């Protein structure tokens, strides 16, 4: 996984609550056996009409947001299914950070596994960043993971919390499996004790 670098870029406003994984990537695109190429179908049913033509009003179809690197959204973003196709599609589109008042659990975790930073901020701060996002190219937002800050166009900094382990993995681009396999001896020894205690498992 590539390392997460500081971003300064255009943020796309998506002022909806409960944006679910079916909205992010509808099921017809889950039939792929690859991880790549899903960006073109991100928010497919909001982005294209029944004939596959772009719906001009949708934020990611507007010229200012076609290269957005940040998404600002309402509470409970990513609710619904566990499909990792949702963060794959977001990443493939080019979005590297999502800012919202809250996220659904599984989606939140899936983001970190794919080099995306989900940022939780209080509603009033998200509202201010949403206003910035509405200005498109005229109001770039900066996300600094190292210092755990988001800065709006007027330079106001908002600090966010992030799990230290997840921050470390994101900043270093670390692969979870490789790290866990370093603890193989601990897994072996757990399994032996466990098999003695609970032989029916």
């Amino acid at each position: 996984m590539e390392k997460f670098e500081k971003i300064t870029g255009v943020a796309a406003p998506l002022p909806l609550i409960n944006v679910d994984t079916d909205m992010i990537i509808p099921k017809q695109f889950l039939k792929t056996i690859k991880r790549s190429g899903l960006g073109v179908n991100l928010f497919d049913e909001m982005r294209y009409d029944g004939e596959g033509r772009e719906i001009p009003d949708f934020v990611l179809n507007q010229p200012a947001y076609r290269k957005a690197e940040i998404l600002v959204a309402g509470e409970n973003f990513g609710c619904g299914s566990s499909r990792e196709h949702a963060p794959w599609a977001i990443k493939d589109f080019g979005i590297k950070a999502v800012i919202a008042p809250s996220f659904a659990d599984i989606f939140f975790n899936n983001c970190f596994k794919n080099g995306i930073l989900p940022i939780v901020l209080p509603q009033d701060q998200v509202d201010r960043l949403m206003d910035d996002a509405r200005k498109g190219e005229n109001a770039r937002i900066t996300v600094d993971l190292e210092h755990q800050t988001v800065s709006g166009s007027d330079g106001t900094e908002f600090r966010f919390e992030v799990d230290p382990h997840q921050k470390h993995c994101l900043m270093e681009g670390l692969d979870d499996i490789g790290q866990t396999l370093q603890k193989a001896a601990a897994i072996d020894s757990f399994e032996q004790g466990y098999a003695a205690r609970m032989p029916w498992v």
Partner: protein
Amino acid sequence: MSPKTLYDKIWDAHVVHEAEDGTCLLYIDRHLVHEVTSPQAFEGLRMAGRTVRAPEKTIAVPDHNVPTTLDRTSGIKNEESRIQVEALDKNAQDFGINYYPVSDVRQGIVHIVGPEQGWTLPGMTVVCGDSHTATHGAFGALAHGIGTSEVEHVLATQTLIQKKSKNMKVEITGKLRPGVTAKDITLSVIGATGTAGGTGHVIEYCGEAIRDLSIEGRMTVCNMAIEGGARAGLIAPDEKTFDYVMGRPHAPKGAQWEAALAYWKTLFTDEGAHFDKVITLKGEDIAPVVTWGTSPEDVLPITAAVPAPEDFKGGKVDAARRALEYMGLTAGTPLSEIEIDTVFIGSCTNGRIEDLRAAADVLKGKKIKEGLRAMVVPGSGLVRAQAEEEGLADIFKEAGFEWRLAGCSMCLAMNPDQLEPGERCAATSNRNFEGRQGRGGRTHLMSPAMAAAAAVTGRLTDVREMM
């Protein structure tokens, strides 16, 4: 020792390693796998030259993509779906994991097959690349959905990197009224807490109304824990659980059964254990409910009317406006006047034998409304066989329902079972999101008995009027 919740006990029994910041490596007892969220994980293993650490604890079954029509034995026509199912066939064989292919009578929805075959046992950790893994919590197992990267992690290491969630108690006191089912409980809880009410928590459901439920009903309740935002839902095992598990193909036998039983009987929340959040509903207050919008929290008793956006606050005002527009509904319309086009009975929420019995009970001797499209999709081949043996299949067919083969089907419409734009469906599944059952499709969630009642009248209907 300080008192522990059921979640605390299961968690503690599975910690392989704990880092200073509380990040744990948790041992996984059962890993369920289906065709949609696994191909990239197996591919990742191959690329890194890794193997499946515990193939004997890994169970795979295709369910999301499989057609449910009788002609599926001749192959899957949709090429992408076929490739995905074939990839699972190959991965199961290459890595030597337990497998129930499409042709096997035991094939079905992964969350129905697991318990049915005795893979799911009390006190276990169970994961699957599927959010409805919460279903298995009905056995007092810690069960939750994971993403594909985590599927790969579990395949390679039989562990998951986790931080412990908070404890939440949802108590349903007293008795349910006639016509009220497990589905009405679980939807009513989400209505009360919202779809983010459980975020960051593991819910333990308890109380008399939960104890009174069958294991099938408990699975329905836990299944939708995720729709309330919770990581998992749990119900402490009891005699009903042990009776359900005993004798299943992969349940322990003989002396191992006795040892397991002794352990399972310790799986309850200790007196005085701490919960971070508590919700209590009275069983008597729960009515048969339906959803009116595009989030499972948009739930109301069938006797209510479609709400207005102004009835809500904050971001929900716009969300409700958008939902009403999508659903083609006008505020103030009585819910029981909403006409439907389609009825879908099935899914991991309500595709078990008890669900089919409840629906058949309403349909016996009746016909579905003319022009309606109605289908029953049993949750597994074995549920289907049992329903045929009990005469339920005949009741459905005589009423005018299509009697399908097992799979996820129209719950998420990855197979050919889909809604057309604007088509309105009474569904026993778990999500009413925009486009969930097909682009432009309109979903109303409800219990199997309520769906059967709607099939008869052609509109959302209070099943109590037909009892």
